[in-house]
């Protein structure tokens, strides 16, 4: 078994990048400088101990045994015993210090990356796929855990061992050192080739494992269609193909390692043969002692094993570097929406005024909104309607500062939203999305998300305010019912009620609603309607509307088409105008009565 890990060519770090990554790692690890230093010191001690063994055997043979000096022999033995004990004690300590450093570093990294992700605006989440972001926080960081647990220790220890062993061998006998190094070029060349080949083989295996897992998952999740069309055999045939391909890639990767390990094994024995042969000749000439030859045969593994380990760990270290590089990129991304240094509180009440805003999503060439202005008075209800993609949801989001416009401004009570404190903004203007999103935890926890300082009584009051007290009290544990796996236990309507309760808890002056397009379960549909009505009462409301009934209840209607406000007025005014809105209302009516 050898260390796994691999890195694709595009992820491979350049020298300069590698330097930056290493520098930043040390900077981030600065708080644990002390443990890091201790870990390093311990590794030094254990490495010296590992090398001292063969040296003491040499001393015992040359001074003790060959001169028949029992006392000298005993001294060597005693020192050896002491060295073994020291190696044990420092061995334990090095593990703890190194793991403490590494795991603490990973913790700091997790917190820093997450905090940075949380500071990002919605635009960041539009740009980056959810899966990728989760992978950064989980797989990428976890991939470093192995390195932290033992890889790093091995890497450092192996590096030190090679250096120490070389120095030691050279002081014992320069002639034999040259002999030992004769095999080295072969070993290094083989290790480098192995590192390259195994990296490639590993990447293939990883890709095939992924393909195989997808085939497996597809087979299991689509089993109903497969059986309905009696295509079990064909599907199994295809899966077998992917499974065999996976095997072939495994087989190839074993072959890559097979010749390498064979060569390493041969190299080790061959080197001892050289040492014995040439060393014996040198002993006869009187150039070296027998003890030195013995020590060399024993020390050879201290020279060969680390080189082998280094080459195997190299891939792991490289992929950790690539992961770190990606994480640092997240840390470097500047949040687009942030609190202005001199931000002030928004006034308690006021008009919401959109003034000449233009906005386009990152990466999109066409503007989602072009020079749009609109004003919503205190307590007024505005419905936004229009075709998909015309910009009505975008306008609603800008009115709650989920995005900042590229030009123009959104102001509340005369204060530009970009100049307001985030806290006051979230208190005044609340967005209720189309679907009630639930977090793991109880229903109560889920409502409290809106205001972490809320007492149980306040939450009860919020639930009562939307008239859902009775509904939730029928659940087994009432508000303390665990929602389980993203609320799979609750119906869509119940999830929506939770979302509305959140808004009620904040008790905002302005409510921005994205009306659900899909229908809810008939049981809770009415309750949600009712809750909405109570919530809207007495507040300024901006609703992205999909239903005629909702639109009819609004004070004003804005038809958004082609990134602009095409029509604006009351229901009656717009019907009278016989433009886009009246056509839309007509279509709505038709679909209602068609059946």
């Amino acid at each position, binding site marked *: 078994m050898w260390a796994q890990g691999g890195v694709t060519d595009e992820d491979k770090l350049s020298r300069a990048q590698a330097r930056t990554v290493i520098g930043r790692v040390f900077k981030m690890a600065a708080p644990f400088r002390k443990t890091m230093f201790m870990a390093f010191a311990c590794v030094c001690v254990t490495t010296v101990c590992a090398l001292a*063994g063969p040296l003491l055997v040499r001393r*015992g*043979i040359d001074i003790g045994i060959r001169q028949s000096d*029992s006392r000298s*022999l005993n001294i060597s*033995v005693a020192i050896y015993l002491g060295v073994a004990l020291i*190696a044990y004690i420092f*061995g334990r300590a090095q593990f703890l210090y190194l793991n403490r450093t590494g*795991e603490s570093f990973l*913790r700091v990294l*997790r*917190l820093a990356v*997450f905090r940075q992700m*949380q500071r990002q605006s919605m635009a960041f*989440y539009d740009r980056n796929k*959810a899966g990728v972001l*989760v992978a950064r926080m989980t797989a990428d960081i976890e991939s470093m855990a192995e390195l932290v*647990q033992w890889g790093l220790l091995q890497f450092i220890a192996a590096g030190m061992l090679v250096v120490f062993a070389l120095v030691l061998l050279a002081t014992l006998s320069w002639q034999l050192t040259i002999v030992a190094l004769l095999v080295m070029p072969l070993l290094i060349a083989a290790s480098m080739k192995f590192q390259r080949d195994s990296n490639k083989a590993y990447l293939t295996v990883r890709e095939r494992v992924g393909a195989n897992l997808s085939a*497996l*998952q*597809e087979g299991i999740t*689509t089993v*109903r269609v497969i059986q*309905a*069309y009696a*295509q*079990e055999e064909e599907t*199994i045939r295809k*899966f*077998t193909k992917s*499974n065999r391909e996976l*095997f072939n890639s495994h087989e190839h990767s074993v072959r890559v390692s097979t*010749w390498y390990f*064979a060569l390493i*094994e*041969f190299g080790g024995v061959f080197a*001892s*043969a*050289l040492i*014995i*042969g040439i060393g*014996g000749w040198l002993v*006869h000439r009187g150039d070296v002692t*027998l003890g030195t030859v*013995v020590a060399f045969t*024993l020390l050879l*593994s201290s020279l060969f094993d680390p080189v082998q380990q280094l080459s195997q760990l190299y891939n792991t270290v490289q992929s950790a570097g690539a992961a770190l590089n990606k994480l640092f990129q997240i840390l470097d991304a500047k949040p687009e929406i942030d609190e202005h240094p001199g931000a002030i509180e928004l006034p308690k009440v006021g008009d919401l005024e959109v003034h000449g805003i233009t906005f386009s999503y990152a990466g999109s060439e066409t503007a989602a909104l072009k020079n749009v202005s609109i004003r919503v008075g205190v307590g007024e209800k505005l419905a936004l309607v229009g075709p998909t993609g015309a910009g009505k949801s975008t306008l609603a989001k800008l009115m*709650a500062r*989920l995005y900042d416009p590229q030009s123009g401004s959104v102001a509340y009570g005369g204060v530009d939203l970009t100049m307001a404190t985030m806290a006051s*903004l979230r208190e005044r203007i609340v*967005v209720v*999305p189309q679907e009630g999103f639930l977090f793991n935890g109880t229903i109560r926890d889920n409502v409290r998300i*809106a205001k*972490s300082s809320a007492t149980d009584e306040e939450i009860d009051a919020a639930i009562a305010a939307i008239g859902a007290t009775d509904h939730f009290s029928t659940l087994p544990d009432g508000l303390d019912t665990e929602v389980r796996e993203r609320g799979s236990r609750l119906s869509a309507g119940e999830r929506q009620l939770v979302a509305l309760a959140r808004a009620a808890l*904040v008790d905002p002056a302005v409510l921005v609603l994205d009306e659900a*397009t899909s*229908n809810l379960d*008939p049981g809770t549909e009415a309750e949600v309607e009712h809750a909405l009505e109570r919530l809207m009462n007495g507040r300024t409301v901006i609703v992205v509307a*999909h239903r005629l009934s909702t639109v009819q209840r609004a004070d004003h209607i804005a038809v958004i088409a082609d990134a602009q406000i095409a029509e604006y007025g009351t229901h009656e005014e717009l019907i009278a105008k016989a433009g886009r809105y009246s056509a839309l209302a007509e279509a709505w009516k038709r679909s209602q009565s068609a*059946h």
Partner: protein
Amino acid sequence: MTSIESDTEVAARLEFEEAQRSEGWKLLRAALKVQRRNLLLGALVGILWASFKVAVPQMTKFAINDGIEKNGPLLRWALIIGGLGVLTGVLSGMRRYVAFRESRWAEMLFRERLFSHILRLHIGYHDKAQTGQLMSRASSDLMQIQGFIVMIPITLSNVIQIIAVTAILFITDPILAVVALIPLPFVNLSARRFSHRIHPASIAVQAEQAQLANVVEESVSGVRVIKGFGAEQVQFEKLEKEADDILRESMKAARIRSSFMPAIDVLPALGLVAVLGVGGHRVINGDLTVGDLVAFNVYLTLLIWPLRNIGMIVALGQRAAAALVRINEVMSTKSEISDPTLPMQLPHDETENLGSVKFDKVVFGYNAEYPVLRNFNLDIQGGESIAIVGATGSGKSTITRLLLRFYDAQSGHVYLDGIDVRKLKLSELRSQIGVVFEDTVLFNDTVRNNIAFAKPHASADEVERAAKLSGAHEFILRLPKGYETVIGERGFSLSGGQRQRIAIARAIVANPRVLVLDDATSAVDPSKEGEIREAMKTVMSGRTTIVIAHRPGTIALADRVMLLDEGKVAAIGTHEDLVSTNARYREVLANMSADADAESQEV
């Protein structure tokens, strides 16, 4: 699990677990039997390798004693050692290759068998099973088994190596051998205990990592809510707690490592110390040669890895056995729906109107206590189309499942062309029923292969004809690579309506006697609903069709309408008849309209 178990219950449970475990081992043995020859070869290579490996220090000893100390033929000894180097190199490579290849081969065969079995299990099993669970049977559990199999030949050669080395040491000098070997069993013991203790610790770390992943996942998917309420701090605190938990559990694991690994490293050194001390004095006394002493040293280091490995294989074996038990749970589940022993054939007389379907006094419930269909009767003529209407949960989709034999009725019969579906071969029955499910399934494959799913060797003509009938041809041509465009989860994404039309085309290619459309318009943008209906109308003509209607517009496509209420046929007739005579029908219809209105959103 209840905390109070009677003795007999405990005994029964233990017996069951034991039976499961022995069943697991039996499976492994059976699987390995196929590869017996190669595994034996691997073991043989391993044994040869071990013996040559053991010979190296022996030769080193001779070289020192004879070549160096006595001025003997040094070159010859060096050449012998070099030769042994070639042999051990080649053999160690072979041992490694055989071990890994065979273990991967076994893993591959296991996965194939498991996948085939899972695919053939009855749908009732799949309705209850979790995808993730089945996935981990075929991935991580098999990895455990592979990890164990790879150790089999390696362990065998390790055992040989230990025996050989021990023998040599005893022959050379029994007293020194005893002294040197004392610390070594502790290496094995430590490795074994380490393996036992580190496993639960790493599982605990993984569990904490999974919890952190949950927080990250919900924070990313729920970012709108978090931003909307400024709840970043709340989530950050949740994450901090999980990160702290990971740190804590990781450090627990680190402590376990720190208390075993250095000990495993240092114990052999104690043997070396003993050899130097006791052996050195014996050399001085003339009882031992220097060469022997050096050889002793080398031999002791040869024992370290085999002892460690053997210590670990016990734990590996236990984990593999546990994985096998879990795999066996799946493999030993028999499909409740299978081919009859003496299957009948469907009539093939072209002159008759084929495709008649009959439900006769059918009683069925997913849970026997709560029947979904109670005494359900329905007669559909060949070529007739019927729409099934009913409230949510009234059992509309259940009718399809019984017809397809995804489930069997608890009592009563279902007939296709007069033959009880249970008397037909499953493949024959299912090839005659084309279903378009409510949630369309696309495979990660080309459009062509998705349409030709039921008939993999369908000609390009057949595929295109089906696509034209379902109204999919035009948009397919506009896709980047036309019919060769890869669609599905990881491919080009299609709209709901496009997906539906592909699914309808798929059903057409199968050319079934009976077409079941589990409302193909429900996931479709209302403006496209009409087009889908048009497509449905084309393919329905002249074919028995069951339409499960979720939207009022779909009903009009069928010759007759059946109202399903409380598991029975509440009314049957033409749409107009039912509207005028049946109050319940009007009520269900009104609910459907309201739903449809809620969906008809943008223009």
